[in-house]
């Protein structure tokens, strides 16, 4: 049995059913993200775990204890909010020690624990400051320390990075994950940003319309999406139409060229199926003469080049539609010019067959 156990959770606000039968088991020390568009119910699930909402149906258990109907202040759960929510009238140290003081921990012990926590978040000398004297990133780290100080059983993170600047967002991701690993605390992280979910989590729950569409490791979710929604919501996707030649053998043709997929296809011979390609599995050959026989290669024309720094995103027009592909920047080779005639190469095993 999992450490944190959500069983058949449902939640309705009036006639609006926001969460529809949601199940999830989180192992002790695991970092699980709830990922989905706004309105998918991810925040409501988190708030039910925190106790701010009561499930219409279902049960929440932590370490075997049923907490479904406990009040938020009886659950021993740490929570970090998007809006930091530091108490503006208290210093950083008082904020971090707030939960301990309420729990009746002695002053000396509180001081020691607060010092530990401030060291953990890398702000050891900020204890005497007030929240308004800190940057957004520092405030959010203090909020994390405050949530962790009373040694909660579960840590809940409600889009904690959304209010921050891009650069700080990225660096804080790694920091939060490091701290979570160090303390081994069971964590649920809610986000609408797929990069955050993929980069931080042990497992990702992709949610849509109040349900979990897929639960899995980031690599799994990204490379083997189970539904069309997951494939399209997570990452960029190119789609191509293919005609099935041999369903059992995984043989199809794209624009008349044969392509062999590694697995059988659940469609009839002659049917059209959708193939999806991630931008990083498509390779660009500037010299079309280089393509050896037997390779699958689509002729294409460069339509747009976006130099993003490390990655160059190229859009190429083919007879099968526009295809985006990602190249790494190479200092000795500038990106191809607009309008250049090239060939796009990809392998059957890199293709996702859309259901």
């Amino acid at each position, binding site marked *: 049995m999992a450490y944190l156990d959500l069983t058949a959770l449902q939640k309705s606000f009036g006639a609006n059913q926001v969460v529809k039968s949601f199940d999830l088991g989180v192992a002790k020390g695991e970092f699980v993200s709830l990922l989905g568009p706004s309105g998918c119910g991810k925040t409501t699930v988190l708030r039910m775990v*925190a*106790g*701010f909402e009561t499930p219409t149906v279902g049960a929440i258990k932590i370490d075997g204890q049923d907490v479904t109907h406990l*009040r*938020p*202040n*009886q*659950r*021993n*759960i*740490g*929570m970090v*909010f998007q*809006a930091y*929510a*530091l*108490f*503006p*009238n*208290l210093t950083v140290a008082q904020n971090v020690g*707030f*939960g301990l003081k*309420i*729990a009746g921990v002695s002053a000396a012990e509180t001081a020691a624990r607060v010092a530990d926590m401030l060291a953990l978040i890398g702000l050891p000398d900020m204890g005497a400051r*007030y*929240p*308004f*004297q800190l940057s957004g990133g520092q405030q959010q780290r203090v*909020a994390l320390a*405050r*949530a962790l100080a*009373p040694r909660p059983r579960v840590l*809940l993170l409600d889009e904690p990075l959304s209010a921050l600047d891009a650069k700080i967002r990225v660096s804080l991701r790694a920091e939060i994950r490091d701290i979570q690993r160090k303390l081994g605390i069971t964590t649920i992280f809610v986000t609408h940003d797929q990069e955050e979910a993929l980069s931080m989590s042990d497992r990702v729950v992709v949610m849509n319309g109040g349900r979990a569409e897929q639960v899995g490791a980031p690599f799994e979710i990204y490379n083997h999406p189970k539904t069309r929604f997951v494939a399209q919501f997570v990452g960029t996707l190119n789609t191509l139409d293919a005609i099935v030649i041999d369903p059992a053998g995984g043989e199809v043709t794209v624009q008349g060229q044969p392509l062999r997929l590694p697995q059988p296809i659940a469609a009839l011979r002659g049917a059209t199926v959708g193939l999806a390609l991630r931008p990083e599995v498509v390779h660009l050959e500037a010299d079309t003469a280089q393509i050896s026989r037997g390779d699958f290669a689509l002729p294409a024309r460069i339509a747009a080049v976006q130099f993003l720094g490390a990655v160059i995103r190229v859009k190429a027009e083919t007879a099968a539609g526009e295809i985006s592909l990602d190249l790494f920047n190479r200092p000795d080779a500038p990106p191809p010019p607009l309008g250049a005639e090239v060939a796009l190469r990809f392998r059957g095993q890199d293709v996702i067959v859309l259901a």
Partner: protein
Amino acid sequence: MKRILSWAAIAVGVVYFFLPLVGMLEFSLKMRRGEYSLDAYRSVMGDPQFQATFGYSVLMACLTIVFGVLVVVPTVFWVRLKLPRLRPFMEFITLLPLVIPPIVIVFGYIRLFNTSSWLPLTGSALGTDFLLMCGYAVLALPYMYRAVDTGLAAIDLRTLTEAAQSLGAGWITVLARVILPNVLVAVLSGAFLTFAIVIGEYVFAALLDRPAFGPYLVWAGGNKAYEPAALAVMTFALTWACMMLIQLATKFSKHTRMPH
């Protein structure tokens, strides 16, 4: 040029406000012929009627503040947290005392609670005092409400409450340790405003025939020469002190100063 014009406009504004006060101050010092003295002030301070009415008004002001705070703070907190749809209604209700003339309110009270009514409050001095305090509370409501509402708007009430709850705090702890410290300044500024308004109020006290400071001011204005000026200066000094206290209270709360 535009800069000079706008500064001139501000100067005109200052003169518009302060010239009457300066004129009054100067006059109040001229009781003794040919030289400036504090005679008028001495005369006022020695007047037992001044002492009685001023004391009465200060007491009424304090009672009004306590009454107002006890009614307004919990109501606004609860409406903001749990019944946000009621906020426009609250705004409307609290705007009413500004637009309904005090005369109408006090006539209503007299009509409703006269000696032949079901609750003859105006029959006794204490009952009338209570009625007067209720009237003052109504008069002060718009300011108290707006001060507290602005104070609560400045903090993220819901999230702070939830953060405190998730750290183990119950409702009482939330109110005492998180909400109150953060709206104290707002409550204080509402209180000072209430104090200033009650001290100078005339219509309610006069029509309910209570020995308050406002009617005494008017009576002195009609019957004495230099004392009214001294009284006006003193009242102004008092209200000015209230203003300063409001400003100080705002400055004092260093944690609410945002860097922006």
